[in-house]
């Protein structure tokens, strides 16, 4: 089931939105037990929404561009009346009183929200193992991670429990799980999609984006959620082109830059070969491939973990047990309540990052760590500006390895951070980036090609992704 087919069949009246929704819910019921991609299935709300789409059609009113399309929503995105936990115990049972901007837009386009997906707590993680509710699993091999932090969204789409989903990407949290599960995942330009109602991790990096089983489906969802929102001060007031039509653009003559730094030590040889083969395929389609340099790539992990943790330590200060969520009150004083609530409510990785972020912002260390990292961020941005003057897009691996085994990296936070080395730089630069599947490994694990474009040029990125998809049409779905 792909997004475009659902829309077409509901528009033509061949299927009702309710029937589509029931089929998805049955699939989740039957198969999500072993995957744990959902934290909450919004059965009643979804059916009600689907029926209202059918009513709308019956009464002859115009249908939205996602009419009847079931969509899974990462649990970091607020949904009115539907529990939202951000994968944390501190928000267990919390029900938001409002919809995120992206959710309003999805509803207005007649999409059907089927549930909330599993994630690393507050989006901090690369394997889903930091979810307070237990990890989601990779449908290609359930002993392996679907990636993170949007692992539940990726697993749900890969397992065809939903044709599309929303995730959020701060340092690779859409692209890496998309690569590890053989799905399409897009991190839009920073500011392209409203962050209103996205539970904040690192505000200067967070961006909501879609997952789908196909490029066109992801483009269709992106065109619905993209656009200006006055409630997010960083939202860009820029026109959104027809992103679905952009998928059909000819890629002949487009210049593809291949950064040497992304094929360095630590890259799994099979992943490297698969990505190089995809780039070769694009060259056969008429793209011009040339090497480019992104010399500050090796500093991206350090830069990111200073800046993202600093922002997180500030953003997560709001979870104090006063206005919402968990409260643990030793009944001594207010400080004791804050401390006990946060100690009980946050998991180990979140605490680690709050402490690191507070440290780099603290008196005596601010200039040496935080300010310096902000300056290195400028150098990383300049790398991309220079490279993207010479070429139209950059192509590289998304993740240095295919999906790793659950438990393999949990005891070494630094090793886990290093697995984000190819996705962090584009986040720091604020440029759009996506993952599209290429040839799997010999053992059948998915591999993703990362495509990075100039700010606001998602259209060119999607054209290249579509060309790549046509090279590997084997509808990637786990058996």
């Amino acid at each position: 089931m792909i997004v475009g087919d659902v829309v077409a069949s509901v528009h033509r009246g061949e299927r009702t939105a309710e029937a589509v929704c029931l089929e998805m819910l049955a699939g989740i019921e039957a198969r999500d037990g072993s995957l744990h991609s959902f934290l909450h299935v919004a059965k009643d709300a979804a059916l009600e929404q689907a029926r209202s789409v059918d009513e709308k059609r019956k009464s002859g009113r115009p249908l939205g561009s996602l009419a009847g399309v079931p969509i899974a929503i990462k649990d970091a995105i607020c949904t009115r009346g539907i529990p939202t936990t951000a994968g944390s115990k501190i928000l267990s049972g919390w029900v938001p009183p409002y919809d995120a901007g992206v959710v309003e837009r999805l509803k207005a386009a007649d999409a059907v929200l089927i549930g909330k997906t599993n994630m690393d707590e507050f989006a901090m993680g690369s394997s889903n193992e930091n979810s307070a509710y237990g990890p989601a699993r990779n449908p290609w091999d359930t002993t392996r991670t679907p990636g993170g932090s949007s692992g539940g969204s990726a697993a749900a789409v890969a397992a065809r429990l939903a044709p599309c989903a929303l995730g959020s990407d701060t340092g690779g949290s859409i692209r890496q799980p998309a690569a590890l599960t053989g799905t399409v995942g897009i991190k839009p330009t920073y500011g392209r999609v409203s962050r209103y109602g996205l539970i904040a991790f690192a505000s200067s990096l967070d961006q909501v984006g879609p997952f789908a089983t196909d490029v066109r489906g992801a483009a269709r969802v992106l065109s619905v959620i993209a656009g200006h929102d006055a409630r997010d001060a960083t939202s860009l007031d820029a026109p959104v082109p027809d992103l679905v039509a952009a998928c059909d653009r000819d890629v002949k003559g487009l210049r593809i830059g291949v950064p040497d730094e992304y094929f360095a030590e630590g890259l799994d040889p099979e992943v490297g070969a698969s990505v190089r083969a995809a780039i070769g395929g694009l060259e056969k389609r008429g793209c011009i491939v040339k090497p480019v340099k992104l010399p500050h790539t090796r500093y991206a992990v350090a830069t990111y973990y200073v800046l993202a943790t600093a922002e997180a330590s500030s953003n997560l200060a709001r979870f104090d047990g006063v206005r919402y969520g968990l409260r643990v009150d030793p009944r001594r004083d207010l400080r004791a309540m804050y401390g006990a609530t946060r100690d009980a409510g946050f998991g180990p990785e979140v605490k680690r990052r709050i402490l690191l972020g507070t440290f780099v912002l603290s008196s005596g260390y601010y200039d040496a760590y935080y300010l310096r990292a902000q300056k290195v961020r400028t150098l990383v941005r300049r790398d991309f500006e220079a490279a993207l003057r010479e070429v139209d897009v950059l192509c590289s691996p998304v993740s240095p390895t295919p999906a790793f085994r659950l438990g393999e990296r949990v005891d070494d936070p630094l090793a886990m951070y290093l697995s984000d080395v190819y996705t962090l730089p584009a986040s720091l630069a604020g440029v759009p980036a996506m993952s599209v599947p290429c040839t799997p490994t010999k053992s059948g694990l998915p591999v993703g090609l990362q495509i990075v474009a100039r700010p606001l040029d998602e259209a060119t990125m999607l054209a290249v992704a579509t060309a790549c998809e046509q090279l590997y049409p084997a509808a990637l779905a786990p058996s």
Partner: protein
Amino acid sequence: MSGPRVDRSLVQHVAKLSSLSISDAEADKLATELAKIVQYVAQLEELDVSGVPPTAHVQMDRMPLRADEPRPCLSHEEALAGAPRVENDGFAVTSFVEEK
């Protein structure tokens, strides 16, 4: 720069700033983990960043302010609905003013 010594006392100091109550055993474990990360991050010192402006935000130059006009917002009831404790129509917390 050799960097700071990340030990239990530094972790407890930062934990206090972060409003986190953590045990000394937990602080010791975190000190080991954080020391490794701080050591890794120290590689940023290799770069000459003199004259490089900091990037706080990629869109900083075009962040508009919205008009300062009253708009509908959450109702009182909605705002209080998720609170762990409500008294007298407000968020209730343990008293923090000592009574004489």
